[in-house]
């Protein structure tokens, strides 16, 4: 099916159509001209040969007169036939049932020719015998009367000439006509190919440029040749590409400006936050001694300062991903041990069902794995329902960690945006305990691990039995040159 479509596309392609049109035009023209001139020339050749033969025969026959005796004897007829025959043709002389001839060719005479000769006119006819063309010319020998009329003598003379020489001339003409036709066909095809190339090259260039543009190379431009319609198209393409490049460049500049702004702001906030954290640590210690509202206020300030510090740290992390400066610190890590450690540090080990087969050693960034696991499990506790399970599996290429809970699962509308930054699933709840960047950071961390074409991934979904499940897949051999982009 596809092969046929490919063949069909080829056959109906511009090149084939051009070649066919040119070839058809060339062939029709040549056939018309060549066959026309061939038939014309053939008729002229034959007519000239016939007229010359008739003229020569009548000239010879005038020398036969005057005839002094009738009926002729066989000997006289033979003599006459021999006298009239020459190397161009032999002559048959017939007198009623007597006949004489220069050579044996009587059986060539056709009844219709004899009929027309008997009616008193010079008549000729071309016949074919044993593959060779012959010209037969016949006439009566009549006696002239004083008043210009004539009476028949009963003698008839037929000249039989070969037309082989004329046939050869005509065959040469035919060969020439075929040759001309063939040459013009070749020429037409060559011209068509040339024309097709002239048209197809700009089209091909245009196609290639459009593809490159589509692949993101916005600096693609076409060389504008000539002033034809294709040049117009190329010019329009260049204008479009230029506009696109400018607009995309503008957008990128705005975006990077915004990111840099966020990064700068985060960095600027870090120093005062460090100071604030130091102060809130002191406040925390003093909070127990403060009475009533003052103590609650001190704890609130301390808590919010911690949250703010977390948010700023997350923002700095995100801006590292965005600027491409995030680097992996790779190590050979026993994944089961690393996950257990991550859970134990946070005091979750007793609350999580783990399925961690030991001995899965993978080259990855342990800090980032810790961030991902902590984030996924934390989310499961916060948004889903216990029991939360962590399952590790591995194959020769990938290592997979599934974090699942028994909660209501993720809303299908939320699912596509789960990894968006600062996305709030519950719009009514404007304040959440997390920064809103945790999943985005986890996703970036997963993608940071890559081995050639294989790239780490983090996927959110719902289990058939209910509950959300986040699946982290990392390649087993992450290359050292870990680059965020």
């Amino acid at each position, binding site marked *: 099916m596809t092969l046929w479509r490919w063949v069909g596309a080829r056959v109906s392609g511009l090149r084939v159509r051009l070649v066919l049109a040119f070839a058809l035009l060339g062939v*029709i023209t040549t056939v018309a001209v060549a066959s026309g001139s061939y038939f014309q020339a053939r008729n002229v050749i034959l007519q000239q040969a016939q007229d010359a033969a008739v003229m020569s025969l009548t000239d010879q026959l005038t020398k036969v007169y005057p005839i002094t005796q009738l009926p002729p004897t066989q000997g006289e007829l033979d003599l006459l036939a021999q006298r009239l025959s020459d190397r161009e043709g032999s002559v048959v002389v017939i007198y009623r049932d007597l006949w004489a001839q220069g050579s044996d060719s009587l059986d060539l005479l056709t009844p219709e020719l004899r009929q027309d000769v008997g009616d008193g006119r010079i008549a000729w006819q071309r016949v074919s015998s044993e593959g060779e063309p012959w010209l037969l010319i016949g006439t009566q020998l009549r006696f002239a009367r004083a008043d210009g009329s004539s009476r028949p003598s009963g003698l008839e003379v037929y000249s039989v000439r070969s037309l082989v020489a004329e046939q050869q001339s005509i065959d040469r003409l035919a060969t020439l006509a075929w040759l001309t036709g063939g040459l013009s066909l070749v020429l037409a095809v060559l011209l068509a190919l040339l024309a097709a190339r002239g048209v197809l090259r700009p089209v091909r260039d245009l196609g290639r440029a459009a593809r490159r543009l589509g692949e993101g190379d916005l600096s693609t431009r076409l060389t504008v040749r000539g002033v034809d319609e294709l040049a117009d198209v190329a010019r329009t393409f260049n204008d479009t590409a230029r506009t696109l490049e400018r607009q995309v460049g503008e957008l990128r500049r705005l975006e990077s400006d915004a990111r840099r702004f966020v990064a700068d702001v985060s960095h600027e906030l870090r120093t005062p936050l460090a100071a604030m954290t130091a102060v809130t640590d002191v406040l925390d210690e003093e909070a127990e001694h403060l009475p009533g509202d003052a103590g609650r206020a001190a704890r609130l300030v301390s808590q919010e300062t911690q949250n703010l510090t977390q948010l700023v740290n997350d923002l700095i992390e995100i801006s590292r991903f965005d600027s491409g400066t995030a680097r992996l610190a790779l190590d050979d890590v026993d994944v089961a041990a690393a996950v257990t450690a991550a859970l134990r540090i946070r005091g979750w080990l007793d609350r999580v069902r783990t399925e961690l087969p030991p001995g899965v050693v993978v080259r990855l960034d342990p800090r980032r794995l810790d961030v991902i696991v902590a984030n996924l499990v934390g989310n499961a506790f916060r948004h889903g329902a216990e029991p939360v399970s962590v399952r590790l599996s591995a194959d020769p290429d990938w290592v997979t960690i599934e974090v699942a809970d028994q909660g209501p699962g993720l809303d299908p509308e939320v699912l596509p945006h789960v990894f968006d930054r600062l996305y709030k699933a519950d719009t009514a709840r404007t304040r959440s305990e997390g920064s809103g960047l945790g999943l985005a950071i986890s996703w970036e961390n997963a993608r940071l691990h890559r081995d050639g074409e294989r790239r780490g991934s983090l996927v959110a979904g719902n289990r058939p039995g209910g509950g959300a499940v986040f699946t982290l897949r990392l390649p087993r051999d992450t290359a050292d040159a870990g680059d965020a982009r």
Partner: protein
Amino acid sequence: MIGRRTGQTLLAGGLLLTLATGCGVRPSIVITGRPAVSGPSQGIGLYLLRQGELVLVLRPAKAQGTPDTALALLAAGPDQTERGRGLTSEVPAGIAPVTSEVDQAGDLTVRTASAARALSENAVNQIVCTAADAAAQAGLVVSFAPVTIVGPDGTRPPQPCPIK
């Protein structure tokens, strides 16, 4: 679309057919040209019969014969050679002496010595053609002039020679 395809196919087929059949020297029908070759004859012409058909016989002679001499030779019948070639005559020898005359209107009249009305059809044609030919040759009458045969027993209606 179909119509155009068919047209193209027909055109191409026609061209191929023309090329395939039109090459070389083809046999033709009979082409007729000028009237047959004619020239002078020398001698006295008379019409004898061969298998019931009128045949022109040319007897060698120094001068063109008059109708009278030709008719006299006709009355004498075919000679030995001519008889050997199968030539006969139905003209009775008794019609001699035969005379001929041309009247004012240009009509030729032949007078025979024996009965004219008893002559056979072939004999009449022999006489008419021989006399008319000789007279035309001598310039006395136009060709194909009707000839009247007059005998002692009466006159036959004028008739022309059947040979053109």
